[in-house]
């Protein structure tokens, strides 16, 4: 009988209109990494919220080291030994790294004042676990997203939890940081800590997990040792059907070059030149911070271009604002759909038409509501947006459906060039393959697509050509048949 730290039995949780969890069970052994996978909406987040004390189950039991527990809030759960690292960060940006790491537990000296020396020492000890050379006095606001994610994880680890729940911990980490995270997990495992690891990246799960539990539609589909599973078998369990060749295959000829960027320089990229051809999907690979997003934003005038020129169909484009880009037919799908892409508390129908309001207005400037409804309805069918109604607020949709709404917004402008930045971040397998199909279909109509992505398999699987950026410069170009994981990574990291 293995030593179980956590036993979850028959958890049921119902929200208005949805049964999010339907009799789910889960065992976590001492010193194991237990991966939890499933499509968006499968119930992973709800289960995590319940374990972390944020929500209460309708029924079912949780046993921690053999004792029944129930939590009223996250603080209680943390005291009992269950800590959660959420995707949404919970750091105070204006406070230092040290104060964030030891929030609410700062060592105090006389008169209850914070003892800065001990605070920094404890913070440095934690940072050392991660090989981080970082001044504990740095304000968190000055750190990159990747570094913040690391701080968040360290903060949770510093509580010495019995069970640490990690939700997509690598979504904003670079390759080396991911490696360090896995090393830290291994180290803590050896000391008896247990992990529940949630990720869409199956390759990570094979690297780090001991066992895998698959959820689908709020039900427990199965639990198996990671060693015995394959990517295909897990996907089949998650989706309930086969997904063959997710990325599809190009079925049309690539046309002539029509969108040219010459010597573009801006905030975090220098002297970038490339040409995009009609119907081509051009992958833009590189490490986080290589300047790809900044380049994408500058190409549509969202950030300013210090030097360089852009030409579309042989005519120079001077884009001073995203408005001019939209008018010229250059669309940019942001990497950050919640912060910069969608209007979360607005209806799906209103989101769909945001960049193309003009098309739905009469000459006098009155909105044509029927045309908007018809457009949104068509988008729902074409993009398989799963929703109770088009009046639904976008915030209530799953990540995959939100991403499809975002895609429908930008395909709705009838783009000539579409720049998509991390189009499948936080999107489940099923929706991901649908998004790939949509991008392929768009390219088949002669539109050039620039695909910025940190998911190397996606870049390799989808692109006709791959450009690699390193430290703000183009470092290499590979034709589809020459691009491999090894040579793209080597090029992105500057290893030759």
């Amino acid at each position, binding site marked *: 009988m293995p030593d179980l730290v956590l036993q979850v039995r028959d958890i049921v949780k119902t929200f*208005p209109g949805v049964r999010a969890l339907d009799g789910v069970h889960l065992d976590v052994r001492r010193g194991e990494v237990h991966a939890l996978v499933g499509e968006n909406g499968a119930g992973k987040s709800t289960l995590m919220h319940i374990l972390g004390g944020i929500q209460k189950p309708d029924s079912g039991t949780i046993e921690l080291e053999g004792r029944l527990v129930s939590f009223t809030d996250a603080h209680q759960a943390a005291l009992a030994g269950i800590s959660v690292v959420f995707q949404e960060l919970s750091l105070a940006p204006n406070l230092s790294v040290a104060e964030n790491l030891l929030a609410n537990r700062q060592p105090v000296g006389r008169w209850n004042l914070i003892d800065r020396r001990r605070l920094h020492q404890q913070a440095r000890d934690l940072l050392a676990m991660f090989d981080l050379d970082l001044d504990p006095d740095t304000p968190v606001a000055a750190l990159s997203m990747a570094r913040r994610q690391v701080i968040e994880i360290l903060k949770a680890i510093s509580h010495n939890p019995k069970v640490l729940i990690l939700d997509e911990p690598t979504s904003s980490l670079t390759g080396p940081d991911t490696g360090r995270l896995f090393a830290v997990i291994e180290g803590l495992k050896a000391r008896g800590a247990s992990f529940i690891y949630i990720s869409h990246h199956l390759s990570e799960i094979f690297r780090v997990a001991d066992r895998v539990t698959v959820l689908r539609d709020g039900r427990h589909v199965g639990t198996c040792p990671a060693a015995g599973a394959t990517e295909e078998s897990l996907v089949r369990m998650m989706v309930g059907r086969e997904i063959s060749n997710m990325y599809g295959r190009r079925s049309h000829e690539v046309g002539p070059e029509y969108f040219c960027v010459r010597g573009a320089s801006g905030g975090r990229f220098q002297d970038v030149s490339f040409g995009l051809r009609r119907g081509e999907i051009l992958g833009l690979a590189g490490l986080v911070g290589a300047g790809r997003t900044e380049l994408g934003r500058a190409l549509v005038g969202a950030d300013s271009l210090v030097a360089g020129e852009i030409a579309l169909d042989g005519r120079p484009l001077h884009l001073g604002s*995203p*408005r001019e880009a939209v*008018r010229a037919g250059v669309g940019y799908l942001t990497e950050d759909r919640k*912060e910069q892409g*969608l*209007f979360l*508390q607005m209806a799906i129908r209103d989101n769909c038409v945001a960049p193309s309001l003009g098309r739905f207005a009469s000459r006098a*400037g009155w909105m044509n509501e029927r045309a908007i409804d018809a457009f949104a309805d068509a988008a729902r069918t074409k993009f398989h947006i799963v929703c109770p109604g088009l009046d639904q607020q976008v915030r209530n949709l799953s990540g995959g459906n939100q991403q499809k709404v975002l895609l429908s917004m930008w395909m709705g402008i009838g783009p000539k060039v579409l720049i998509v930045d991390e189009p499948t971040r936080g999107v489940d397998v099923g929706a991901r393959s649908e998004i790939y199909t949509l991008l392929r279909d768009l390219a088949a109509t002669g539109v050039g697509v620039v695909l910025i992505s940190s998911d190397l398999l996606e870049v390799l699987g989808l692109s006709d050509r791959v450009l690699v950026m390193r430290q703000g410069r183009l470092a290499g170009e590979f034709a589809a048949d020459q691009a491999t994981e090894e040579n793209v990574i080597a090029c992105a990291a500057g290893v030759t």
Partner: protein
Amino acid sequence: MRKKLGIVMTAAGAGVFVALLVLRALGVVRPVSGGFLQEIVLSEALGLPLAMPFTLSALLAGAGVFLAARRAMARVRELMIFLIVLAAFAFMADASEVFLGWTNLSAILLAVSLQAIIAIGMTVLLVSGGFDLSVGATAGLAGAAAALVLTRLCPALPGPAVLGVVLALLVGLATGASVGAANGLIVARVGINPFITTLGMMQIVRGLLLLVTNGKNVSDLPTAFTVIGQGGLVLPGGARIQFPILISLVLVAAGDVLLRRSRFFRQNYYLGGNEKAAILSGIRVDRIKIFNYTLTGLLAAAAGVIMTARLGSASVTAGVGLELQVITAVIIGGASLQGGEGTVLGAFLGSILMAIILSALTLLGINTNAQELIIGATLLLAVLADTLGKKRRGAL
């Protein structure tokens, strides 16, 4: 089934309510003095007493709407506030003998009119995620500017008096628009937050008002000007609608339709919903902000000029506290400080609700010192109900 029952209840309640109103106007139904009864006059000596008929029929209609259109209630925010206004109206119609009289009703509308004009601009601002504390001061300054033109400048000018009035109006409105444009430029181009910007602007404008008037009220305004505030349209029945009421109703109707249906104003919902996404969607965020503040300043000036015409003098304390009343009404009407929601109709209904409550305090002889307390409580209750509703629907 439930829906059908709801529709029947709504139709019955509304039918009785309207019939009662008509019969009251004809004198067939009249209030029994001393409270909460109306009677149907059968003959001079004989009346059929009815206990609180307005309130009961309004409640029946309201309950019917709840049954028939629960989902629409969540979507159409004005419906809820309309039902509350209706309930308050019906209660007062039963509770007070004079409430339904034209004198009282037009007094309520008159009290609402200035606030409602400014509330149009404030709604647009709140929807777009903005905010303006300087409207009360702007109204005061614009009124004083018009009054000064009339008393100091016009007597020296040749030509008919009407020309002077037109000039005064233009100067007043231009004053307000300039203050608004200054707010807009600071918020949009410099990027200082709206609260700080308009708080500073409020005090600057108040100071300007004291300086230009030298701290004294400006009176003795020509009748060609005061008629804007004091004149009215006489209806066939002898009832008189004052011009401020007419102007505010026209502006509110136009504002509501524009914000709801026009492409230009619709962009405000996107801007207030997510500014970054709006920029990436190609919406000219800066321009819209500047426009909104300018519009609000212009409307505040219109209200200020009308107020001056009505009082026949520009007071140095005119419009003190008006900004808070307007913001309260707009928020009761369904807008939020986070931006992205709100309608002009809702804001108008919010103003009406506040005015009915105030009139109730007077008519029912409740201590009028309780005014502020009750308005504050109404605001908090409205926001509370809205927040709880959203939480239950999982929209927060």
